[in-house]
């Protein structure tokens, strides 16, 4: 173990710092969180910032040049350096939409040349926004039971069915979607991964209200939606395998220890700003105790992530250490939010629409959103099943028909 930067990485860190000081004035004012909470088209300055990051290789650095990226060699440590330096200076990193974080890696892995050439650049630059059409009313945890049908019709598929909980569908130009193309095959073999525009005739979007008060959820209905067969990613009937590689990326996106650290540091500020009987809250032994206990958990997760990164860099396979990240990270974030809310006592009950992070309603909405992430992308219970069955090699729960 040697935690010092190697020369190459030391230089790289300098370069990142240089970039930040040269371009700090272009940082957009709106936070990524406010976009997740209240999906809407990105503002000009957010898009410009994203393009700047892509151009300099501080977002999607490994995406090949011909698809709009910087074409750098994969180097997980460099990613970490970017993320740390940006974080330290409170500079927003590259956008993390479902399109950017899930679809792009999937296209790179499974897409045809034409698909890659057409979609990756505008997606990473934020010009094309995607939604994820996986869940259906009857298929959530049991995603592979999905029923949306795609029937062959000449060179096209005709799609009929319904998706639900589709985040941001109202602002998405495109959808990556799981559909059943081989009705006679086993449930895992009959699925295909399709991409198509949301304005294709027959796509009907109905927003659904959520607990945060923002209708970020949608139902998406398909009636005879015609999609050329060439829009399948990864081959007919291979959708389950393709989707799983996407889910892997989603789980990574949902648990990022810097996100927990960000919450922790905001709480630290609160501890200094808020007072009780003249003393700042940070002087209260009980609050100190709770804060330090959370700090230890955040620190453990940050270092754990670094250790996992080093293992991956050396080519290690996905391990138990990776499997716990989504479960632990999402729960930790939720507890951090609840702590912040407690600190503000009854004023912490504010639920107005002020998206600024100094407002109490920020923590309320963040806590609800984080509770949503404990559920989304594979629930906590499903994560535990995966850890036990795949990680610890314990026997599967018996499948009981109709129990």
């Amino acid at each position, binding site marked *: 173990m040697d935690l010092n930067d190697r020369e190459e990485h030391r230089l790289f860190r300098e370069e990142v710092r240089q970039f930040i000081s040269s371009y700090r004035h272009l940082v957009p004012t709106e936070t990524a969180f406010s976009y997740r909470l209240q999906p809407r088209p990105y503002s000009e300055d957010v898009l410009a910032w994203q393009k700047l990051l892509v151009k300099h290789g501080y977002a999607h650095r490994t995406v090949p040049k011909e698809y709009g990226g910087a074409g750098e060699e994969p180097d997980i440590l460099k990613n970490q350096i970017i993320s740390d330096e940006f974080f330290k200076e409170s500079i927003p990193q590259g956008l993390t939409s479902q399109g950017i974080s899930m679809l792009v890696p999937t296209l790179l892995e499974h897409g045809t040349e034409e698909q890659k050439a057409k979609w990756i650049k505008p997606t990473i630059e934020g010009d094309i926004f995607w939604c994820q059409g996986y*869940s259906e009313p*009857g*298929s*959530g*945890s*049991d995603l592979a*039971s999905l029923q949306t049908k795609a029937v062959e019709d000449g060179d096209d598929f005709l799609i009929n069915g319904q998706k*639900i*909980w589709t985040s941001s569908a109202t602002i998405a130009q495109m959808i990556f979607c799981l559909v059943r193309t081989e009705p006679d095959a086993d449930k895992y073999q009959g699925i295909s991964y399709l991409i198509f525009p949301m304005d294709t005739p027959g796509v009907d979007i109905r927003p*659904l*209200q*959520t*607990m945060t008060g923002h209708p970020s*959820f949608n139902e998406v209905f398909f009636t005879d939606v015609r999609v050329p067969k060439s829009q399948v990613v990864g081959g007919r009937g291979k959708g389950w395998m393709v989707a799983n590689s996407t889910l892997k990326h989603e789980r990574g996106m949902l648990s990022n220890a810097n996100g927990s650290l960000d919450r922790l540091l905001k709480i630290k500020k609160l501890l200094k700003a*808020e*007072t*009780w009987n003249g003393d700042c*809250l940070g002087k209260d032994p*009980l*609050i100190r105790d709770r804060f330090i206990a959370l700090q230890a958990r955040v620190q453990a997760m940050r270092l754990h992530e670094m250790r996992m990164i080093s293992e991956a860099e050396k080519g290690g396979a996905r391990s138990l250490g990776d499997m716990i990240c989504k479960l632990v990270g999402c729960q930790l974030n*939720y507890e951090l939010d*609840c702590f912040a*809310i*407690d*600190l*503000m*006592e*009854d*004023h*912490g*009950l*504010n*639920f*107005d629409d002020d998206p600024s992070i100094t407002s109490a*309603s920020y923590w*309320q909405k963040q806590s*609800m959103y984080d*509770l*949503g992430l*404990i*559920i*989304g992308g594979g*629930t*906590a*219970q499903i994560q*535990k*099943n995966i850890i036990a069955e795949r990680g610890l090699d314990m026997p599967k*729960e018996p*499948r*009981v*028909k*109709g*129990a």
Partner: protein
Amino acid sequence: MDFTLSEEQTLIRDSFRRALQHLVDLDNIRESARTEEKTNEALWKALTELGLPGVLIAEDYGGMGLGLLDAILISEELGRAGASVPFAGSTVLASMIISTLGSRSQKEAWLPGLASGEKRIAVGVSVLFSNRKMENKLVFEKGKLNGGSSFLLDFAGAQGYLVSDRNRNFYLVEANAEGLSKRHFPSVDQTRSVGHLDFKDVSAEPIPIEDSLQINQALNAARVVLAADSMGVSETLLEKSVDYSKERKQFDRVIGSFQAVKHMCAEMTADLQPCRALIWYAAYAYDHLPEEFDLNALLAKSHMDGVAQRIAKTATEVHGGMGFADLTGVHFWYKRANSNRATLGSPKHLREEAAKLQAL
């Protein structure tokens, strides 16, 4: 020993439960949630006929003259239903403080109206527990109030306000008094009304407080009432979870057949069951074992707050995406539980009081 409800108490509980089942549904919860006032006035009227506003007010003033145990049975039902009506502030705190400490003329001016439901009093005591710096301190001089009071409970539609300063001096103010400015507080709990007041030379009457222990008792009584509300809220969350887990199928089985889901529901129940006795005991103590009351009230609310918070989260998880969405309305109870937690003192604050009470 008989740790069960009397026949009359069962009757009270059942009549409120039936009425609320009949009168409250998700549609009218949503309707109240959309307004600033939150309060469902039609529901208030209907519950007034069952005697709700006068439950703790003496019969001499037109109330029912019942005990705290009766009041918490009602409170539990309000929480269970997610009812948008005044209770902990107007019906409990204001009625109690005026009944026990008010002057004769204050009693005569307010209690009959409170008992009949024609009048309501919003109560502002947040300053006693909140750690926020109050730039706008409440000052009483020559019959006039200046400053501010935040987080008044049962705010909308009140005819009067009862506000406290940091030193537990209480003042009564008419809602139409000059110099008063009112603001609704956009609370996370969308089923009850909260608001802020600013005073500029507003005529006010002090409550003649001889014994400030009685203020404590009233506050603690209201805390038990909120604990009971959270118990009702938790009951609903648990019931919705169990029902949903018996209906919802994944992997060709109802999700309730997965041990993971069963255990979530069993843990919610195991957490919740003992709360009932704790809350009942605290309420009983108010009328029958006064020396036991304060401590048990503090134990009841601080404990219930934690249980309800866990249940709110777990119930949402059992519902999956359906819990995050608005469709089942689970979030209204989630928010009400978390709001009760931060009202009239957070668990941490109450535990501190409980420790002090025992000279620890």
